[in-house]
């Protein structure tokens, strides 16, 4: 397994990160290293431990063992400090149906202390950057899937986090919205934000600079997409992914 090729500083580092729910080992002694500014894909089937890993990294869940650093801060020891530096977009978007686009942004900016003139400027900027101007006063509950996803991303990045966690962000949106979403992700990455994204779409995995492939809670491959293919001895990423699935013993 290759470590990052360059000596670029690391935005996420885990050592022996481990999570058990009773008998079930959800994540097994995971060692991850994510370079600052990268789009890093966490790849795996349902139940492979992707969401549990993100939850441990965002401080939503304490690990059973091991350590994790995000933006240079120990997640377990200083969960409050790390929360100011990270953004998180969950699978379910976490929006309030009865708040407007602008109210969502003001709320999330306010939670990070972005208030007054500074807060208004940031909210206006997000609204124009993400083309929300005509939908500014629309209730989130009436937005289409793609626009909900976009609003959820705006909320997660209102405070300009150093590290952004996206848990299956494109599940259930149409191809055009997915393409647009990835343009926004690349823009954030170009601006220096580190992005950790979970997915099981292979075309999305191809858009990541680096990938980690999880299988039943274990890290089975890590590196650039072409390196993963080599590591797993398969012609394409999709073949590698399916080959792993087939290893799984029939329950």
């Amino acid at each position, binding site marked *: 397994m290759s470590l990052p090729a360059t000596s670029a500083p690391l935005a996420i580092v885990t050592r022996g990160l481990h999570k058990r729910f009773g008998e079930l080992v959800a994540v097994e002694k995971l060692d991850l290293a994510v370079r600052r500014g990268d789009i890093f894909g966490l790849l795996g089937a349902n139940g492979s431990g992707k969401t549990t890993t993100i939850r441990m990294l965002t401080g939503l*869940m*304490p690990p059973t063992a091991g350590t994790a650093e995000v933006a240079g801060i120990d997640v377990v020891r200083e969960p409050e400090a790390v929360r100011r530096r990270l953004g998180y977009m*969950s699978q379910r978007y976490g929006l309030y149906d009865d*708040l407007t686009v602008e109210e969502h942004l003001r709320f999330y900016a306010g939670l990070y202390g972005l208030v007054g003139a500074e807060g208004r400027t940031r909210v206006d900027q997000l609204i124009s950057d993400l083309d929300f101007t005509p939908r500014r006063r629309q209730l989130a509950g009436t937005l289409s899937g793609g626009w909900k996803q976009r609003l959820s991303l705006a909320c997660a990045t209102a405070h300009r986090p150093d590290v952004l966690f996206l848990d299956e962000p494109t599940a259930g949106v149409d191809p055009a919205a997915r393409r647009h979403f990835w343009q926004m992700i690349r823009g954030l990455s170009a601006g220096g934000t580190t992005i950790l994204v979970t997915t099981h779409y292979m075309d999305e995995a191809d858009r990541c600079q680096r990938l980690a492939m999880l299988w039943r809670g274990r890290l089975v491959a890590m590196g650039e997409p072409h390196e993963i293919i080599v590591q797993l001895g398969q012609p394409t990423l999709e073949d590698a992914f399916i080959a792993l699935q087939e290893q799984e013993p029939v329950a």
Partner: protein
Amino acid sequence: MNVSRWPFWAMLRKEFIQMRRDRLTLGLMVGVPAIQLVLFGFAIRTEVRHLPTVVLDEARTRESRELIAVLVNSTYFSIVAEVQGRDEIRARIGRGDAAAAVIIPHQFTRDIKRRRSAEAQVIVDAADPLASQAALQGAAQAGLAFRPDARPFAPAAVTLKVRPWYNPMLDSATYIVPGIIGVLLSMTMIIINSMAVVRERERGTLEQLIVTPIDRTSLMLGKIVPFLLVGYVQMTVVILLGRVLFDVPLRGSIPLLYLLAFPFIVASLGLGLFFSTLVRTQAQAMQAGFLFIMPNILLSGFMFPRAAMPEPAQWLGLALPLTYFLEVLRGILLRGVGIEALWPELLTLCAFAIIIVALSVRRFQKTLE
């Protein structure tokens, strides 16, 4: 301003916007209590009128028959039988055939004619506080209306002594209506607040909030403060309706009542938060709320006098904030007492509020596990 305060203000703002937008729930929070009060109130009205009453007329004069007519005209009493002796009264009330009895003694008319205060007795089955209330009101009205010699400005010619049986502790005229304020307040506060927190969990917004820098206390206070205002609005509506529709007396200090309601509302909201940490779905939160309301209705003294309960039930009642708040409501509204009589309730309610809120904040772990 301290930076760590911002999440709280952001939360508070958000809650108010959502509350304003959720007109249906807001309407229900005020409308349902109003409807329930009216239903309860009119149920009480129909119950307290036309008490089945037996008469023991020992005097058998024009005046005694006139008194009986006045009692019947008050609509509080319906004569079901005339009896011949006190044993028969005891038997009939004991069996439940009658809820009240009127006894007019031999010397009744003689006393009136000698311009002495004549006495008649109204006996009432006070095991039902509503019956005693009716008897008290009916007897008082009849006493004023009874004018045997037709002189409009004569002093009251007759004293109707009401003897509550079975429940000598009978202490209030309007026993139930102030209690409704307490029951409705605790019910809506607990259910509304636990559902508000559980809704955030169900929708996934709680998960989103937990990864922000907001601390548990700000999060919980952001949920409590807006509903505190709703609680006061609700209380005001019910008191005003009780006053307008049912003549619930307001004998004591209203500011004192609002002050003492503060720890009670906070404790109820705290219980709502506590329940939200025990359940997973809004439906479960609703069920837990109703489950908790039952002992409140039965044990707090809302329906049945606590003094008449077996001891274990009395002890259980002491664990309910409503028990103390009912004392406050009845004390202030009905007996017109001041803080000097209610400070033990104030201290107990404050202790409840602090302990319950502290417990729920502790239970509400900032993790998903």
